[in-house]
């Protein structure tokens, strides 16, 4: 590889040709600050508009300062990253940015976790001159079912736009207007609700400021907890336990399952259950559906459409309802684990407790913002009583725990409650890309072949590549599996399905890059994709530690079918655990 040598802050460094100054500096331990640049290297995501101009440095012989995020190293370059000129420029530009930013840090939802705030601190900004007459660019606030947009706080880093367009290909957000009033917004600056937004929350996950945050459902949960007439049940998604610890100072990848359960109990939840249980249930239903379609397909039944697509990710469901309504009979009809849990909790478990579903409140802790919208879908309620009442994100849970004076670190590990708290390792790995399909394969293989799996770990289905494929031998029957995470990658596979080119029997799709561990409701990764890798590793670790690794081995699942549901995909199961999809593409109506 061709390399170049250059000097940064009097230190020599040799880097491959094409390396940016910023990356070269990092090798020397020089951390050049930036606000807009973001590199999620392992996920192949880069945001490099060169817009914040915080990362500038002096390059000898150059007329103006160079943005180090996008200036390539050249042989013999001499770079200084902290001369008086650079520091003055960086501070002045920061003052510019702050001069058009609300000063309500104390009450901002991003306070303490805001990259702009940290930058102001780091650069030692002590005053913002000219505030008396400085105009601010102000916009209407927008509250959608999942996401709050407060564009007054937008600094035009364009990360959300990159996520929404380049990565997710959702195209709900675009830079709009120009100059001082430029911002990132949906078409016609309407509410997100009326856009093509899937609520995947990736925009929120990367927003450096308080411009994009989630709708806070903690107050509603709190009200339910103190209501003596309500039995409050909580379910926690698999990806939450692998990330919650980060909010309390644990290293990324630390599993805090037991402490999380203890904290939830301490918060007053009557029953602390595991969404993993519902994940196991999902596998039974989805796996049965897959095998059914597969068998029919093999017999030549043209109505059995393949590939089957997973349907446990609500962002993904929103996406295909918007962009692929013509394929809405292709995905599995199985509800997501969150909704399966709610449906079972408010029927089966309410029966066990002998209470009316109206007196039960189901709360879910999710790594996801689309779940907030999903639980509000009208088809997931009975007589206006939703199966899942509130969905709060990992971040909200962390804040809730802190507000309740609970020191997570000192809590003793506790166990989930029965019966909806028991799960297999297959349910755990739902939280990472490839996990759902691996879980499904574990079950489908054994059900289809009648043989016991010798090897439970399908490592060929794991990894962070955007689109992956593998062929699993079902005792002589090769099953082609496709995996996509990130909606842009999903679109590629879906385009093939639409055109009939797809060779897959089953496809797993997760809306968020990395799967749920990289969800829009997770603790912020601040552009460090290592964190996402660590979380995935943690889930696979928990899977390995579980005594049961396959969903159909979960004794409580078996019991559920025996006592309540009957057969997988049976009539009752169909009624409670399956759903249907809608065509949500915008229609152009002809005026008569």
């Amino acid at each position: 590889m061709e390399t170049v040598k250059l000097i940064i802050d009097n230190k020599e460094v040799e880097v491959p040709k094409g390396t940016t100054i910023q990356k070269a500096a990092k090798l020397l331990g020089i951390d050049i600050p930036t606000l807009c640049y973001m590199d999620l290297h392992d996920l192949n995501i880069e945001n490099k508009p060169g817009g914040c101009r915080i990362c500038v440095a002096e390059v000898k012989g150059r007329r103006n300062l160079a943005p180090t995020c996008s200036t390539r190293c050249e042989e013999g370059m001499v770079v200084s990253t902290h001369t008086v000129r650079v520091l003055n420029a960086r501070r002045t530009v920061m003052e510019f940015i702050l001069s058009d930013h609300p000063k309500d840090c104390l009450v901002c939802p991003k306070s303490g976790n805001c990259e702009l705030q940290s930058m102001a601190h780091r650069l030692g900004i002590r005053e913002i001159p000219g505030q008396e007459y400085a105009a601010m660019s102000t916009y209407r606030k927008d509250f959608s079912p999942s996401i709050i947009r407060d564009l007054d706080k937008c600094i035009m880093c364009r990360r959300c736009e990159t996520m929404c367009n380049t990565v997710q290909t959702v195209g709900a957000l675009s830079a709009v207007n120009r100059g001082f009033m430029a911002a990132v917004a949906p078409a016609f600056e309407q509410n997100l609700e009326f856009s093509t937004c899937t609520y995947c929350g990736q925009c929120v996950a990367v927003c450096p400021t308080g411009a994009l945050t989630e709708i806070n459902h903690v107050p509603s949960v709190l009200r339910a907890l103190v209501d003596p007439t309500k039995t409050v049940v909580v379910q926690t998604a698999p990806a939450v336990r692998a990330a919650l610890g980060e909010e309390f100072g644990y290293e990324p990848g630390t599993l805090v399952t037991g402490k999380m359960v203890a904290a939830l109990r301490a918060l007053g939840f009557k029953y602390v259950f595991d969404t993993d249980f519902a994940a196991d249930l999902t596998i039974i239903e989805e796996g049965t559906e897959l095998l059914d379609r597969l068998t029919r397909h093999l017999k030549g039944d043209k109505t059995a459409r393949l590939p089957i697509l997973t349907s446990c990710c609500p962002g993904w469901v929103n996406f295909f309802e918007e962009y692929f309504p013509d394929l809405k009979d292709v995905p599995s009809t199985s509800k997501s684990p969150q909704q399966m849990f709610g449906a079972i909790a408010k029927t089966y478990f309410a029966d066990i407790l002998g209470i009316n579903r109206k007196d039960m409140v189901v709360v879910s802790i999710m790594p996801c913002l689309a779940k907030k919208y999903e639980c509000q879908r009208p088809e997931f309620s009975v007589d206006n009583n939703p199966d899942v009442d509130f969905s709060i994100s990992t971040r909200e849970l962390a804040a809730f725990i802190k507000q309740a004076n609970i020191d997570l670190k000192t809590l003793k590990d506790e166990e989930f409650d029965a019966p909806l708290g028991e799960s297999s390792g297959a349910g755990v790995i739902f939280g990472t890309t490839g996990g759902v399909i691996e879980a499904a394969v574990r079950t489908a293989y054994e059900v289809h072949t009648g043989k016991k799996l010798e090897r439970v770990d399908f490592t060929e289905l794991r990894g962070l590549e955007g689109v992956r494929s593998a062929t699993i031998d079902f005792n002589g029957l090769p099953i082609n599996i496709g995996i996509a995470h990130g909606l842009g990658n999903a679109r590629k596979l879906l385009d093939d399905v639409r055109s009939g080119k797809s060779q897959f029997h089953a496809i797993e799709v997760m809306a968020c890059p990395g799967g749920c561990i990289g969800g829009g409701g997770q603790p912020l990764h601040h552009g460090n994709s290592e964190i996402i890798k660590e979380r995935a590793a943690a889930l696979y670790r928990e899977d390995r530690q579980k005594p049961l690794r396959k969903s159909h081995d979960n004794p409580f699942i078996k019991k559920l079918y025996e006592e309540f549901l009957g057969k997988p995909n049976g009539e009752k199961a169909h009624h409670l655990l399956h759903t249907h999809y809608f065509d949500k593409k915008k229609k152009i109506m002809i005026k008569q």
Partner: protein
Amino acid sequence: MSSIKIELRKEDVDFIKGVCDSFKNDPQELINVLHTCQEHFGYLPAEVQEVISDNLNVPVAKVYGVVTFYSFFTMTPKGQHPISICLGTACYVRGAEKVLEEFKKELGLQVGQVTTDGKFSLSSLRCVGACGLAPVVMVGEKTYGRVAPDDVRNILKEYE
């Protein structure tokens, strides 16, 4: 979710489709499509942008992003007699701002607004290239040169 239904007349939808077709539904031709549609409709209402988005397969947010980027595109209809005051440098140094003020006063409008009867709309633009005639005012297609604030009332009278 984008579940709003938009309504347009069939001939309008057909017109837009025709325009997009004539540019081979190439997303790169978005600006040319917008030009043609604005020429036809006089402005680019949201509905028109939706149909363009649909035909060119460009997210409507991006279409809107483009429309709001370029000052030539507008989402509000112009008045029957659109009045544009050139604020190019040559006109500026010869007092165009005072002329603009006079129009604002006479019409009770701000730049970008239309009179309630839809008769006049007021806009400023940068250099129509008739610098020799500065300050220049355009009403529709007609150009008025060397306009002084005192002339404003007379110009408006022509259109009453």
